[in-house]
């Protein structure tokens, strides 16, 4: 594959699309699929065929458009219109609206902050391209970065470009990506691996799923560029088995890229070869931890091991291994296409680019959003999220999943970046963002996350295995109205113990939801111990002297 050949494929594809007067995109990613997106797609296709408009209307299944709460979504690209909550019965209305320009099902305005306040880099193709066709990706500048890189740049130059861009790991910890790449590259000439961590497991988080389902080639391209930069020959995509559509689309994508010579042996006629395989996770949250993930790929029990040695030095089968998150890889191609300076111009001083969040909870617009780093939480919740429904007040925002913390309303004007979130006890995390209003009980929230950590602890180290059980027991007692002030002291002691002595991030992060809720909502804990659940959530705890019905 040469640059000319690639451009030709892109040109042919664009020409073919232009021949249609109307382009109708139907979301068939997991969110809309669950509300019947596939049936809507079939119905619209059938309607177009029956009304003899096959040569005028292109109907394609695309990935996530973001506003999952209004699914299934249908967008008419050529008219710039979007329809929400479309049913298969409304297919004639959709098709009928094309020529007349009027009518159609419930329209979803696209000139609202939800769409306008976003900045899309990772999700730029999501909801636009057909994830099952490599040509569509190529027509949107896909694989341009890879082909140019192999032809024109040395691995060292690629790494320097990534370093200059300021890209940091999107898995949560925010380790500088360029630094990680350069460490793996420095290990010399030997067998090396590139792993894409797609074992997304935080409750309520689905950023990686959306990218893999909607734009799988972007991740493969990022992995191939990374492999070229660090000198790896083999890559693994570790995807959780609960994402069947992502796995299916990835398999298709790998086959297509192989066929076009964009993956496989001597890519683009160079000496660089890169093969990618998929490995399925069997449902263990801890396998998102890099050393546990590596053990799982090796066919062993998925338990973490102490670091150092870090995977960059000794990873998969003891070889140097580069392991990055889906979203990190998805940022690579745009950086190389548009230059490091462009990327570094977005975001804050230390956190560059954008971050994808799965916005969920008590907020009007739920779904997938991509925002520039540095935007405030208040802007995300009130503008993009459309505020809290039913006239309720925002109480807290939870970021970072079970290892993250609850940020109280008073800190909502903080910018979203790695350092700011850390400074108030939470973390960026992989991108889960749960909004809570007055009806949420913070002790109950802490109990929920602790239960998650307890059942997902791998059981290897004692503080995490037995400590999370003890903490959960205390929280269960408190929410059942049986807590004592001594329990709160014991809980604090356990938080300190588990955080500082656990082997991996799961245990070290497990106390964070408790610590942040105790720090910012101490009053609620005290109220529970005194026999009252202020939010009225905890059954068995009195509310204003009256027992809440169980």
């Amino acid at each position: 594959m040469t640059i000319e050949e690639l451009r030709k494929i892109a040109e042919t594809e664009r020409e073919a699309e232009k021949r249609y007067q109307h382009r109708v995109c139907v979301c068939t990613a997991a969110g809309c699929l669950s509300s019947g997106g596939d049936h809507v797609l079939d119905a619209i296709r059938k309607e177009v065929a029956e009304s003899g408009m096959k040569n005028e209307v292109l109907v394609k299944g695309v990935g996530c458009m973001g506003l999952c709460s209004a699914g299934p979504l249908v967008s008419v690209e050529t008219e710039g219109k979007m329809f929400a909550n479309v049913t298969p019965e409304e297919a004639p209305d959709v098709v009928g609206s094309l020529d007349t320009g009027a009518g159609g099902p419930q329209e979803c305005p696209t000139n609202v902050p939800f769409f306008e306040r976003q900045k899309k880099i990772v999700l730029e193709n999501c909801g636009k391209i057909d994830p099952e066709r490599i040509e569509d990706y190529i027509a949107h500048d896909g694989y341009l970065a890879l082909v140019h890189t192999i032809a024109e740049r040395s691995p060292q130059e690629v790494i320097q470009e990534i370093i200059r861009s300021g890209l940091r790991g999107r898995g949560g910890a925010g380790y500088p990506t360029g630094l990680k790449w350069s460490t793996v590259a420095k290990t010399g000439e030997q067998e090396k691996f590139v792993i894409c961590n797609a074992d997304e497991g935080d409750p309520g988080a689905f950023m990686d799923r959306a990218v893999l389902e909607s734009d799988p080639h972007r991740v493969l391209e990022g992995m191939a560029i990374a492999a070229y930069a660090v000198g790896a020959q083999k890559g693994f995509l570790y995807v959780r088995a609960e994402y069947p559509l992502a796995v299916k689309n990835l398999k298709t994508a790998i086959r297509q890229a192989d066929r076009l010579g964009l993956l496989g042996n001597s890519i683009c006629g160079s000496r660089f070869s890169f093969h990618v395989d998929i490995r399925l996770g069997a449902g263990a949250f801890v396998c998102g931890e890099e050393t546990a993930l590596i053990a799982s790929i090796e066919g062993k029990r998925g338990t973490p091991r102490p670091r150092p040695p870090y995977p960059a030095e000794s990873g998969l089968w003891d070889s140097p291994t580069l392991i990055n998150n889906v979203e990190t890889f998805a940022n690579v191609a745009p950086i190389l296409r548009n230059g490091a300076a462009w990327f570094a111009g977005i975001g804050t001083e230390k956190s560059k680019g954008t971050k994808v969040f799965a916005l969920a909870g008590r907020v009007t617009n739920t779904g997938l959003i991509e925002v520039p780093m540095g935007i405030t939480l208040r802007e995300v919740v009130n503008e993009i999220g459309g505020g809290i429904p039913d006239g309720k007040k925002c109480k807290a925002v939870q970021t970072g999943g079970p290892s993250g913390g609850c940020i109280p309303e008073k800190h909502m004007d903080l910018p979203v970046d790695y350092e700011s979130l850390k400074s108030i006890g939470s973390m960026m995390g992989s991108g889960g963002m749960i909004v809570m209003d007055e009806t949420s009980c913070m002790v109950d929230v802490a109990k929920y996350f602790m239960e998650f950590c307890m059942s997902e602890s791998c059981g290897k180290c004692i503080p995490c295995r037995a400590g999370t059980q003890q903490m959960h027991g205390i929280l269960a007692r408190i929410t059942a109205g049986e807590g004592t002030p001594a329990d709160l002291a014991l809980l604090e002691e356990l938080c300190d113990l588990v955080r500082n002595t656990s082997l991996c991030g799961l245990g070290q992060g497990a106390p964070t939801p408790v610590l942040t809720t105790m720090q910012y909502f101490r009053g609620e804990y005290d109220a529970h111990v005194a026999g009252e659940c202020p939010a009225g959530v905890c059954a068995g705890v009195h509310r204003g002297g009256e027992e809440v019905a169980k």
Partner: protein
Amino acid sequence: MTKSTVRVKTLTIDGREVGAREDQTILDVARENDIFIPTLCDLPGLSTVGACRLCLIELKGSPRLLPACVTRVAEGMEVIANSERLDRYRHGILELLFAERNHVCSVCVVNGHCDLQSLALKLGMTHVHFPYQYPSLPVDASHERFVVDHNRCILCTRCVRVCDEIEGAHTWDVMARGVECRVITDLAQPWGKSESCTGCGKCVQVCPTGALSEKGKSVAEMSKRRQFLPYLTLMREGRK
């Protein structure tokens, strides 16, 4: 140019200056110099896993605590192996272990010869201030010579490692997650029905508690014989 292929480092542990080979761990050096660092999952001759977290030490300049059993020495390192903070954590971890399953020393076959018990003694533990969990756990006495009592297991995985690394049978492994974890033989079959078990008994001898014991032993009658382990490891290393 130096002719020696061995690199040596000097460091301090609890203020004492000590010398070490560069491939040694902090725990190795501490033991050589009679500096006490508590351990449970570690056993010389087996691979290290850093699971029990009792050997955590403080390192000057590092905010994190590091497990001495897997942390290599480095030039100029200042190790704090015993401090009030570490003592507090070590007590906490031991108490978590005692509260997790049903450790009743008075009726245990290894009473007086138990690593867990003697460590509690050495660290001066007086009581457990976490609620006891009292899980309901089985005892498997299907093997003709040995018994596994899950009530006394601390999941150190010494049995798993000795069976895999020294005996080469890999009869033992761990199943499930979190507090539900159990050591199992083969695919969670009764030990007596295990086809891979050679009956060598190494697992019983390396077990730090009374979880694995020989049949026919009563309270305090079972003591473990581990002399074979350094010898076997040495023989293996020599053959390489």
